[in-house]
């Protein structure tokens, strides 16, 4: 294991420890509430990226999975009268329902590509929202409310926090596994040139659909957690078009298709939005701010923070190495110059 890997693992361990002790140190309910919201979005964005980022199929219909998960968990909780900590055991069922929905959704939408795909996902999303409004079992525009949780008010947010953390970490680990697997490579190949990938033995439809279903499953679980946390699922909040936009924006901000980018995007945007919402009492301001951020990202960071940051770093390293070369008769000692490592970027040129 080289120094870079150790450093990275150490950094991840530190982040993990911080994440675990966070609600024990910061006990202000407002901040822990922000933290739960943020974790919900971290998990959702990582799940979105696992499909859209890797395959290049930009979905603006993931709220279908979010809402399906929320409603499934909501209706089951109400129907079975589940109470206490066991409610979280229902989350996989929410994921499962979303995954089941993802199969026909994917089979229809994944036949088309690029813009057409985006439009189809939006259209299917609105169909689901309409169904939530109009079916009787969904409670119409009354939605589904959670039972009361008899948890201590002081640490009320903590169970949600830790379940959110588990979902987020689980999603990240899964994304990492996929990124380094054959399956992930097939997805990336589809992103770069789907027809070519097919011609090399990649079963494109199967691969895309699998990623779509996995992504839907996680998003469904996240939706279920959100319902427990927020207390009520309404058609317009569980099937929320701004959810789709927010998730996509977070991924774009951090860097679509990268592993760290979407996490970073969610960690930046969600607290910002929450802060926004309480600072400016006008609710619309948060949405306007979201739009402004969207424009700024497109203008200045079209590839996202992580790819742009990496690029700046390699450029900076290249400049430093060039300066590090001992100029003939220059001040730099020859021994120091000789130790300059071969530039990693050399092969990239």
């Amino acid at each position, binding site marked *: 294991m080289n120094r870079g890997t150790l450093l990275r693992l150490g950094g991840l361990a530190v982040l993990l420890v911080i994440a675990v002790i966070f609600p024990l140190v910061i006990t202000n309910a407002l901040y822990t509430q922000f933290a739960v919201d943020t974790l919900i979005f971290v998990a959702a964005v990582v799940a979105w990226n696992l499909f859209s980022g890797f395959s290049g199929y930009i979905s603006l219909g993931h709220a279908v999975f979010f809402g399906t998960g929320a409603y499934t968990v909501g209706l089951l909780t109400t129907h079975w009268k589940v109470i206490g900590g066991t409610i979280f055991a229902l989350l996989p069922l929410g994921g499962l329902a979303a995954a089941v929905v993802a199969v026909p959704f994917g089979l229809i939408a994944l036949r088309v590509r690029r813009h057409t795909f985006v439009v189809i996902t939006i259209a299917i999303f609105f169909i689901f929202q309409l169904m939530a409004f109009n079916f009787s079992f969904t409670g119409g525009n009354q939605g589904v409310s959670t039972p009361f949780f008899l948890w201590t008010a002081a640490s009320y947010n903590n169970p949600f926090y830790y379940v959110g953390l588990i979902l987020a970490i689980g999603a990240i680990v899964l994304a990492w*596994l*996929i990124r*380094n*697997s*054959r*399956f*992930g*490579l*097939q997805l*990336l*190949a589809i*992103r*770069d*040139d789907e*027809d*070519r*990938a*097919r*011609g*090399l*033995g*990649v*079963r494109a439809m199967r691969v895309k659909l*699998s990623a779509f279903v996995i992504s839907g499953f996680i998003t469904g679980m996240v939706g279920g957690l959100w319902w427990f946390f927020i207390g009520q699922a309404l058609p317009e909040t569980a099937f929320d078009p701004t959810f789709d936009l927010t998730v996509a924006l977070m991924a774009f901000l951090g860097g679509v298709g990268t592993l760290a980018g979407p996490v970073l995007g969610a960690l930046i945007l969600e607290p910002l939005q929450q802060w926004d919402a309480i600072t400016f009492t006008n609710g619309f301001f948060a949405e306007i701010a979201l739009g402004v951020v969207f424009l700024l990202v497109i203008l200045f960071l079209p590839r996202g923070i992580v790819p742009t940051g990496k690029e700046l770093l390699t450029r900076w390293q290249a400049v430093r190495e060039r300066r590090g070369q001992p100029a003939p008769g220059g001040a730099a000692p020859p021994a120091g110059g000789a130790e300059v490592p071969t530039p990693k970027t050399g*092969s*990239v*040129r």
Partner: protein
Amino acid sequence: MTALLRTEGVSKSFGGVQALDEAGIEVDEGSIAGLIGPNGSGKTTLFNVITGYERVDSGHVYLGGKDITNAAPDKVFAAGIGRTFQLTRVFSRLTVMENMIVAAQHHERGQGRLRNPLARAGGPATRRRAMELLEFTGIAGHAGALAETLSYGQRKLLEMSYVLMASPSIVLLDEPAGGVNPTLITTIADRIRQLNEQGTTFLIVEHNMDFVMGLCDKVTVLDYGSAVVSGPPSVVRTDPKVLDAYLGTAEDDDDIPVG
């Protein structure tokens, strides 16, 4: 010699344009066959039809006696037909090595690596074979670089390399020398010859006549979607029908491209 790849009366039209009209070609096992013809004569369409990117309207495609008409691209590839594109197609945001691994899907599936889809992409055997092929084509030094950083010629070599990952019995090359510098053209021709000696059959579409005439055992000429002439280069280059195909029935024969 038996025909490894054979098309029989293949027709394909796009709207009113008859791209292929009863096209029949035969590629003998172990040979290097050339496919030439004026622009729009249906060469690439024929490639697309053979490799499953287009469906035939009528006719048949056989590989080693097996009917592979209208099989999907991945099935065709698995059956042993590798193919490169006229406008080179590599996975630009993947590294050169990852490009190679993508093409090893079928190969690895055969080794039972499919069981665990989350297994790390590219086993040691795959990577070793990929390195060998990259060394063979001379771009091994770029294995870790993103494919988008390669020059056009290097991309052609990469595309050729990854197609070879699956050890295809026949490789279809669409203009391997197009837009490539003369030195690299010689390299490409050398590599094709070497691979051919090792038993790989080739079918090559190319406009560079020196390249085709120097390399191929047999050349087929397509015109308006049908094979008009087929034979050794020396015969084909003097065939009046070929001259007609390229020049129309013009009187002026100053500028014969098949010369």
